[in-house]
């Protein structure tokens, strides 16, 4: 589409964007409030950040969450990429319908249902085969299950647009199917792998409902600690924590976005260059 949007539309757009960002900006402002009461501005201070960095409960939970998130997103990227290759490259196989369903359903399945059913599975498994004990391990297993969907969807659309002729050319030149895939298609889908890994990382770091349900005693992730503190009431140190997370995620997304876009432009330029030098004898 290439028609100018009317001023009314643009106003709605910017009002919507303001609505999305205002609460976060206010939260960041509150985090520098010296007073513990939100209603009173007690002057600028970084006391809550200081308090945060000396709170072992929050630091431990953050470290646990980070380890769970890194493990789960790595596992999900592997499984999700395999699923995407299966769905794009093998048009017909037994279980295709099942796989499509199982990849799409977790995206819309209410977390509380996924969590409860998975917990019931883990309990039954523990009773019959003595594995897995509830805790970080079951959280990782559950996170891999829902993160895989996001990876598959992202990589699938990327794979679909990837040109297969390069891979065929590599195979004509003697590469095996796996080698040809790794040399030609993998670099093309690499940005999708990176961005879906990052997406899984944030989804896993953020998950409260599934983690609370499948976790066992002793394994409290960061969202679980935040939730219990928020339910209890005044939480100026959570303001500081939230601001740190928002700033960190914002910076990461902006940097990752810029890097990926540059890499993509570089790749397109090289491709054009190669095509042009091919055309000119």
């Amino acid at each position: 589409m290439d028609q100018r949007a009317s001023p009314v539309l643009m106003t709605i757009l910017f009002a919507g964007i303001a609505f999305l960002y205002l609460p976060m900006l206010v939260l960041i402002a509150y985090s520098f409030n010296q007073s513990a009461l939100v209603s009173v501005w007690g002057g600028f201070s970084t006391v809550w950040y200081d308090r945060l960095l000396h709170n072992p409960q929050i630091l431990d939970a953050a470290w646990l969450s980070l380890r769970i998130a890194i493990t789960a997103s790595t596992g999900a990227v592997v499984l999700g990429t395999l699923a995407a290759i299966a769905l794009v490259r093998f048009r017909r196989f037994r279980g295709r319908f099942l796989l499509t369903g199982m990849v799409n359903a977790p995206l819309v399945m209410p977390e509380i249902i996924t969590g409860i059913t998975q917990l019931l599975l883990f309990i039954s498994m523990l009773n019959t085969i003595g594995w897995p004990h509830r805790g970080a391990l079951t959280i990782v297993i559950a996170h891999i299950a829902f993160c895989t969907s996001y990876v598959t969807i992202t990589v699938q659309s990327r794979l679909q647009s990837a040109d297969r002729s390069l891979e065929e050319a590599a195979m004509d030149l003697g590469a095996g199917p796996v080698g040809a895939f790794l040399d030609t298609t993998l670099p093309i889908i690499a940005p999708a792998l990176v961005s879906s890994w990052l997406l899984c990382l944030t989804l896993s770091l953020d998950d409260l409902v599934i983690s609370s349900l499948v976790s066992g005693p002793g394994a409290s992730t960061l969202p679980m600690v935040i939730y219990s503190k928020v339910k209890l009431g005044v939480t100026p140190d959570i303001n500081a924590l939230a601001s740190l997370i928002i700033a960190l995620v914002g910076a990461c997304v902006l940097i990752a976005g810029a890097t990926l876009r540059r890499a993509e432009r570089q790749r397109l330029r090289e491709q054009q260059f190669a095509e042009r030098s091919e055309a000119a004898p």
Partner: protein
Amino acid sequence: MTIADSRPASSPAPYRRPRFARWMERHGKWLIIAPPLAYLFVFFLIPFAFALKISFADLTLRVPPFSDILTVGANDHIRLALNFANYKYLFTDDVYVLSYLYSLRTAFFSTLICLLVGYPMAYAIARSSKSLQNVLLMVIILPFWTSFLLRVYALEGIIQEHGVLNWVLLHLGLIHRPLMLMQTTPAVYLGIIYSYLPYMVLPLFATLEKLDASLLEAAADLGSPPWRAFLDVTLPLSMPGVIAGSMLVFIPAIGEFVIPSILGGPNNLMIGRVLWDEFFSNRDWPVAAAVSIVFLVFLVGPIAIYQHYNVKQLES
């Protein structure tokens, strides 16, 4: 293949590829298909079977707190004891039916408002120049990457009694007493719209971006006023985006737990909260399993609609 083909046709012994290579050619794809298929089957699909099984069990006072529905009797007979009491209980105790209906209503109206707000936003982005489009999309996606829990919490800072909203409205003289929004139903609506708006805008943008502007020009040439062209051309063509976006908001919103729990009042009974309490406070797992199963049955329809449109869009 290339080696085999390049051999002279008169070669006496035909070239046989090693057995492993032949096996790989026929079944190798299962090395790729099997791991995700098996994983999701065991850890996503099978759990529903267990929930179904436990929903027919009795509540017991042991760990885990439910009975086995399959027992081996004295003379090696396997006894299947299905207990339908949990399901009967769901329909006799009003709280489940009411909370389910209440969740449906909340999800429906928040989805509707999301659509009414999100559509013009997506439309405006689709009509922007390419470079502005990238920036705007980034701006819409960015909140999606930050913590959901923390964003719901951040909303509290705006709408609470001494929050920014009341401060602004009081100073503008629009209200004389602060609005008590926290712990109310409107706060839950606001929370859902705030959290799920990006899910609505992105699929809408995806379909609106592909819309051919010449169709609108043609409609204008044939004398359609812009609103008529919108109703006749733009809206029908963007239906896949409308449905995908609505389902992405509607389905998770029905089962939402965090938003009603933080922003809603104590008597805000959305089904997610009822389930949570059944699990953690009452520890009645068979009833919780039965609620999940009934809930899931009602979700099959909307999920199938979403799946249908989503798969069609991905494969086109």
